[in-house]
């Protein structure tokens, strides 16, 4: 007495292509993505001028005015390097 049914491998999962509107929509979307990836390359051109990050942008006019007198004296005291 054998119970072949109990030991034999189960049927593999059945694959069936999607049908209907959803399938069409997904296929269309994939195609569109593929087309963009192939043809619509986004090109980024490096700027010809070097990118300068202005670190002094946050210095306020108030600070500059406060330091101006001392800085003027410093320039006069170090005339060899100014």
């Amino acid at each position: 007495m054998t119970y072949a049914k109990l030991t034999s491998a189960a049927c593999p999962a059945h694959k069936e292509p999607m049908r209907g509107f959803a399938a069409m929509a997904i296929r269309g979307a994939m195609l569109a993505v593929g087309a963009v990836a192939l043809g619509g390359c986004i090109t980024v051109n490096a700027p010809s001028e070097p990118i300068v990050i202005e670190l002094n942008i946050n210095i306020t006019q108030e600070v500059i005015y406060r330091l101006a007198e001392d800085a003027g004296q410093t320039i006069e005291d170090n005339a060899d390097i100014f």
Partner: protein
Amino acid sequence: MNTKLIRRIALGSALAAMSLGSLAMPAHAQGRDPAYAAARANGQVGEKTDGYLGIVVSPTPALEALVSDINIRRRAVYAERAQAEGATLEEYALTAGCLAIARTVPGEMYQAPDGSWQERTSAPPLRDPRCP
């Protein structure tokens, strides 16, 4: 008598000239190195907005050495004075840059706020609106 007076005047003015000369000497010694003075006058170097010296023309090793030497010394002075004034190095350097650009003389080069090199004319230099 007249000739004696003339002699005394001549001697006096000669002495005055000598003392003027000796007074002028230290001022000259404190001034710019001739190579630096020449590079400024030729427009090879210019004053940058950040308070340091920049090379305007295509750089040579001699110019690079000159500018680097002066900028190292400027930075040391800025750092010392900034600390004394309770400011940051950049704040002090930018302020000094404002003033250094204002003190350029016609023919010298300076950096405009947009980063371009400009030759100083008799007109006021183009400076950052925050400059005093």
